């Protein structure tokens, strides 16, 4: 909300003059702040500042001068937030690269400043916002001001509300072990698996447990992209030593989605040294990734091998029972009554990952809240009808057979045939495993649909594929790809 009445009137005028789309994109996000000789407008980033400077600044200047009633009014356009404190410390001023506008002030009649702004709020932000964590350099500087609270851990990601199932048992046990003996044998703990399966939850759970045992523990969670961005910023600010000191001073470093380090050589180099320093110092590291370390393209070999020095654990997609338990757990966290048969109904149909499961449940809860109805299968069918229609369309036995045959470039008829050569038998086993995972058909029904085979053949196929997924990267990849193309 703008504190400046002149700006508010200017906004009203601009809203009248501009199409609402342009107004909402470029003008609405500007925040005004009175300064000595006029008004400073803060844009959320350089791009918006430059665009406004180019396209709208002239008119804004005109309007403000007209509304204010004196021609000498100065209007500055800056990157930052009026909610934040403008940092004028030398560390920022040193940056040659920090946001200079390409538009000379004279063009628009408006001064454009490239001053970097730290968006740490000086007062609590409105509604439910928390502060955007500043980069490591700022964190280091803040430490003297009681900056221990820069961990970025999400409070409600704890072991208590993590739902255990076969698919994540091992990862959970390892994470608990790490929380009890940080920096010990499982260092680093490397969790890998598809999207939305709970890797981040487990990582935060360890972090939260460590902080519970020792509230002064310096536990830092961040996404790999932030590590990269921090490093780039530190390089720009000539503060790489502060960057190094910061990351090497933590008790536990949790980095999410390290696959995004791929092809970023300088970040890998920096991370490699950080990694070694932490390992030597007995500080715990937890890393997550969407795949097994060896399979990350564009990552240095020495990093890949180091990732395997501790413990590498997969997190698999949750099976039906776990999905039901997750739904029940989420519903109870939201204080919503979810009958078991309703949870079962959703879990049977939404299979890909926990995020999607959560999204579906939220959609159902929104309908229930709004209509004042109890959650039952009818309400679920109504609120998820698009999702369910899509699922029904895709996951039939026919569809699985067609998709698998196409994937392996064989004929559907081969899947039904008696042929037992590897080139046919393996795809057939894969198709059977998919049918078991993705449909509600019984083993005999699945066997029947594959040229009248016995249910024990299906069972064997499922076991075989499960075993191969653990030992054979190709099969693991095939399984993932097929699951994805059948469920998305």
């Amino acid at each position: 909300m703008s504190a400046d009445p002149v700006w508010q009137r200017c906004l009203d005028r601009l809203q009248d003059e501009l199409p609402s789309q342009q107004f909402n994109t470029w003008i609405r996000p500007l925040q005004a702040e009175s300064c000595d000789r006029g008004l400073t407008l803060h844009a959320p980033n350089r791009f918006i500042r430059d665009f406004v400077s180019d396209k709208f600044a002239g008119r804004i200047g005109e309007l403000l001068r007209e509304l204010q009633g004196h021609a000498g009014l100065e209007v500055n356009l800056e990157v930052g937030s009026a909610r934040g404190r403008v940092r004028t410390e030398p560390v920022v001023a040193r940056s040659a690269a920090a946001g200079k506008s390409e538009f000379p002030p004279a063009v628009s009649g408006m001064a454009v400043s490239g001053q970097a702004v730290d968006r740490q709020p000086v007062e609590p932000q409105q509604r439910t916002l928390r502060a955007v964590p500043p980069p490591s350099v700022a964190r280091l500087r803040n430490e003297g001001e009681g900056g221990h609270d820069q961990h970025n851990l999400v409070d409600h990601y704890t072991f208590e509300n993590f739902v255990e199932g076969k698919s994540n048992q091992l990862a959970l046990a390892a994470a608990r072990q790490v929380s009890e003996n940080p920096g010990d044998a499982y260092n680093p703990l490397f969790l890998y698996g598809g999207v939305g399966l709970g890797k981040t939850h487990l990582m935060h759970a360890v972090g939260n447990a460590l902080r519970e045992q020792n509230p002064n523990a310096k536990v830092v969670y961040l996404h790999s992209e932030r590590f990269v961005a921090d490093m780039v910023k530190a390089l720009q600010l000539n503060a790489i030593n502060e960057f190094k000191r910061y990351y090497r001073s933590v008790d536990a470093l949790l980095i999410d989605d390290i696959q995004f380090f791929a092809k970023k050589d300088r970040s890998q180099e920096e991370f490699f040294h950080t990694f070694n320093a932490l390992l030597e110092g007995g500080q715990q590291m937890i890393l997550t990734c969407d795949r097994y370390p060896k399979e990350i393209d564009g990552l240095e070999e020495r990093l890949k091998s180091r990732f395997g020095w501790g413990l590498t654990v997969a997190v698999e997609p949750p099976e039906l029972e776990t999905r039901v338990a997750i739904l029940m757990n989420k519903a109870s966290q939201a204080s919503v009554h979810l009958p078991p048969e309703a949870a079962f109904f959703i879990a049977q149909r939404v299979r890909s990952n926990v995020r999607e499961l959560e999204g579906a449940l939220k959609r159902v809860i929104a309908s229930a809240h709004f209509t004042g109805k109890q959650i039952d299968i009818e309400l679920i069918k109504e609120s998820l009808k698009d999702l369910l229609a899509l699922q029904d369309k895709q996951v039939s036995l026919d569809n699985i057979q067609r998709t698998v045959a196409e994937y392996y470039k064989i004929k559907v008829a081969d899947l039904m045939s008696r042929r037992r050569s590897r080139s046919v038998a393996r795809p057939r086993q894969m198709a059977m495993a998919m049918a078991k995972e993705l449909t509600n058909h019984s083993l005999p029904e699945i066997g029947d649909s594959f040229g009248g085979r016995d249910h024990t053949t299906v069972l064997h196929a499922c076991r075989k594929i499960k075993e191969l997924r653990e030992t054979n990267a190709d099969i693991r990849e095939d399984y993932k790809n097929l699951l994805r193309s059948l469920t998305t």
Partner: protein
Amino acid sequence: MAAVDQDQLALGVQLRDDATWGNFLPLPGQAAVLAAIRAQLGESGEPVLFLHGGADAGKSHLLQAACLDADGQGLYLPLRELAAHRPEELLQGLESMPLLCLDDLQAVAGQRDWELALFHLFNRCRESGARWLASGRQPPRELALTLPDLESRLGWGPVFALAAPDDQRRQAILQHRARCRGLDMPQEVARYLVTHTSRALDRLLDLLDALDRRSLQAQRGLTIPFVRQILQEPELD
């Protein structure tokens, strides 16, 4: 910058008709989605909402209304129009905005740099508490995104389908929007417009704008003969 039209200034009575809550005419069953959007910036609001539907389903209208309602805390990003820009620069630092309204996700689906930049922005927003109100022609899993990480995040919250209005509903929308401008549009005129011009709502609303202007200038109400006469004017094409 578009200065205010002099004709309008002279008359001074044409009312604005921007996308707001007030001029959105919900279809039956859309009340739940409206409630979820309006509650999004509140304490128990969802961190992420996704709306999907075809043309004319009202996605852009709702996103813009939400942005306007956020009282300076919202930013509207029409991705169809911004797709040609460099996403890292455009999206940098936007997590400082409490509400981001990202329209037409399908316009950047399949573009790796956009998907990555959006994914990173999403993660930064999770940390900052900034909320996402996103839209696309299809639900997240059908958007043909190349980054599963982004797809799963877009579907983390409730995903609402918005149906496109049928012809009768289009007539009602036209009448409603006319009323919001202080203009009376009889039912037969609305029916005439939908059946004789275009079914596309943006085209119909442009027409409404022209009709509003001409009706003010001519000081005449909207009748079929008057509308027919205006439609024949060459500058309306």
